[in-house]
């Protein structure tokens, strides 16, 4: 076949429309429409309530910011075929550090926030150095720091101290709106844009992908493998710190249990978004769609009258998220399995 640079193959369109992200987008739209019609009602006082209200949409956005940030942090990590289980714990540790720096350290909010970001990156650096310098498996390293970071947060606060009484100007970040959107949504979108550009538009992202597919191949191509891997984990630490600050602003408190279990939701969102746990393939917009699909599901279910009567929104959304994940995974290998059968039955031509 010869190359014709100008013409686009019509098959490309079909491929584009059946890509994982696209499928997820259809699911998301279907989900949203379903909840819009089934989850919106008028209450006793004649006010339109439920899923269809703008407030609800803003809440969804607000609630998905922290997990969304962690999912963004994980996307490059998983693209390099790594994993970071420690980010949920790191969120807790950073929240505590932030509170302590501000409250006990007497620093202003911006300075405390800046320091927290630096400490988050530093904690990511611990993961990074163990993984790259000693070539340890990320799963185990971050399992260790998962306990360590949470443990440090508890040790610092004796488990009990809660930092509160943050100034209103700070709480604005987590509880108010700015230019029409919840303030933290701007931060989230900013980070999403940054990570998206990094992964999809720069040589860094190219390197992540290459490493994810073939670390040896990357080395033979002269790419700085260890440095790029380190960057990914440090970045994850930094974003976890951002999430910690937003979390603190949303709840108005910093406490050692912040972000417990968030890593699992974040991994789920990333994988649902089409990023392969084996590395190489994956996209930031896929992750955003994954986060949105989970958030809409969770919030939408809570608005369904039937689920409300069962008092089981939380469990139903967990159940359906797990099922959705299994479905997405199976769908992702289906073509491979089908082609395996096909080649088994037909001898190759020529």
């Amino acid at each position, binding site marked *: *076949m010869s*190359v*014709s*640079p100008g013409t686009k193959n019509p098959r490309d369109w079909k491929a584009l429309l059946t890509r994982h992200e696209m499928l997820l987008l259809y699911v998301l739209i279907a989900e949203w429409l379903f909840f819009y019609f089934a989850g919106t009602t008028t209450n006793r006082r004649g006010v339109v309530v439920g899923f269809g209200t703008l407030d609800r949409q803003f809440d969804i956005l607000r609630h998905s910011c922290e997990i969304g940030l962690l999912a963004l942090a994980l996307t490059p990590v998983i693209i390099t075929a790594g994993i970071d289980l420690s980010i949920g714990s790191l969120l807790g540790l950073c929240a505590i550090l932030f509170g302590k720096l501000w409250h006990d350290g007497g620093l202003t909010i911006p300075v405390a926030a800046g320091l927290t970001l630096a400490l988050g990156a530093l904690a990511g650096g611990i993961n990074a150095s163990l993984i790259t310098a000693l070539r340890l498996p990320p799963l185990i390293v971050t399992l260790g720091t998962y306990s360590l970071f949470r443990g440090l947060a508890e040790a610092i606060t004796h488990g009990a101290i809660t930092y509160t009484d943050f100034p209103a100007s700070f709480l604005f970040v987590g509880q108010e709106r700015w230019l029409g959107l919840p303030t933290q949504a701007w931060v989230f979108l900013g980070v999403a844009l940054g990570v998206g550009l990094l992964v999809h*538009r*720069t*040589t*860094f*992202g*190219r*390197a992540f*992908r*290459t490493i994810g*597919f*073939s670390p*040896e*191949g*990357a*080395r*033979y*191509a*002269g*790419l*700085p493998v260890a440095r790029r891997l380190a960057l990914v984990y440090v970045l994850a630490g930094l974003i976890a710190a951002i999430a910690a600050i937003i979390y603190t602003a949303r709840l108005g408190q910093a406490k050692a249990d912040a972000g417990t279990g968030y890593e699992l939701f974040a991994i789920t969102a990333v994988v649902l978004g089409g990023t392969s746990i084996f590395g*190489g*393939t994956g996209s930031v917009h896929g992750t955003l769609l994954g986060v949105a699909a989970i958030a809409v599901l969770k919030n939408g279910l809570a608005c369904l009258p039937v689920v409300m009567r069962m008092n089981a929104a939380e469990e139903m959304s967990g159940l359906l998220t797990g099922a959705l994940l299994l479905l997405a995974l199976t769908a992702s290998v289906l073509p491979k399995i089908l082609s395996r059968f096909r080649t088994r039955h037909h*001898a*190759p031509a*020529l």
Partner: protein
Amino acid sequence: MSPAPLLALRQLVKNYGGVRALRGVDFDLQAGEVHALLGENGAGKSTLIKVITGAHQPNGGTLTLAGQRVANLTPSTARALGIACIYQQPALFPDLTVAENLALRLEATSASSRIDWPARRARAEQWLARLGAEISPEAEVRSLSMPEQQLVEIACALGAGARIVIMDEPTASLTQKEQRLLFAVVRDLRKNGVGVIYISHRLEEIFALADRVTVLRDGQSVGTHAVGDIDEAGLIRLMVGREVAQIYPAAESTPGHRVALSLRAVGCRASGVHNVSFEVRSGEIFGLGGLVGAGRTELARILFGLTPADSGEITLHGQRLTLRSPQAAVAQGIAYVPEDRRRHGVVLELPIAHNLTMAIHRRFFPTTWLRFGAERALALDFIRDLAVKCAGPDAPGGSLSGGNQQKVSLARWLATKPKLLILDEPTQGVDVGAKSEIHKIIRRLAKEGLAVILISSDLPEVIGMSDRIGVMGGGTLRAILPGGSAPHDVMAAALGTTEKGSV
């Protein structure tokens, strides 16, 4: 010879997708005979073996074992039928001990059977002792050196008590002493009426060991001879099959006088390379010949910073270099097209365009910002220049045929505008057409003034392409011969049988 052969293959065909690895091979093996299989790289020797051991299913032809036709061979049935094999790439379990490796390959155990460790150990000891190998049965295979692993493979084949033992380049990484042990074993097997298929690139071994020899070329058998009836020169002619000088494009210019690369007593203990000195001039193609395991790839890895040298001196265009990482080598203008292109040369999952710009991120995307349009244009240029057959710049590397993958791997490094280009087996497993295209490209590059090191196990290729030929053996440079030397001389230098021709 007895009329009913132990093993008879008729018109065997095997395709890998579009690659026709075997296109109708006939082959006989008698009991009590050592039958050598000879051929260039990619001639189909290993493929033939894999069919015989049931690791791959053939696409056509028949396989007859002691007069009985066999179909649907699997590794376990082949083993049950008395076929044992030493694969070219050891198929061992690195985390398990030697004794256990032997047992897993040899004992046809049911899942519920009890394991008798002392017996396993004793048997392993016995097999290893029979080989004369000083390897503890308790050692983990991962901790063994390459030659030792090869010995374990050999012990596996021995212990099977098989009627047919196949050895695919067993001596590739063995030292002299171990080779002698192996030869004794092979003779012993022959005495006991076992049929041995023996693959080797080393002609001297074949003359020392084999009764008959079959030569494969491009997936076909081109002749079977009793070893007494043929000499070295005859075999090489059979293998290569055509006049060397006619095939390779003639040099269109003579290399300049400026020395580009100079090595002085370079060595690296970790990779077994020592005391290598030579010079390559701008515009020169410096061939590196030698047998498998001669240390050529290791030398290339040193020059590319993958295993940094720990002695000697490397200078490029008069500047002394310390090459501690591939990044450093790339920054100095050194390019390396690796021999294992599927693992190292191209990232199979990524599009051709991405593969092409991989080594020039810094230069091509100075702001770190990707420029898709420019990248695509660059890719299209290379695809046209090198006549890469592909669906377009977005086609993944894995969708290309071997030769075209090799071109992409080459193009990646040409894009870096290197001062020194190291090509490691650039035409291994590449079909004839693509091969000659790659040769033309190499010539053109040299004409443009690039210094090229061409590593190849394909004897005619090194001879036909190189301005000078360095012959390596045992991790060091044994001789430097002029281009166009007689194949016999190169082979002789590689084997270390004669010292004549040293420059």
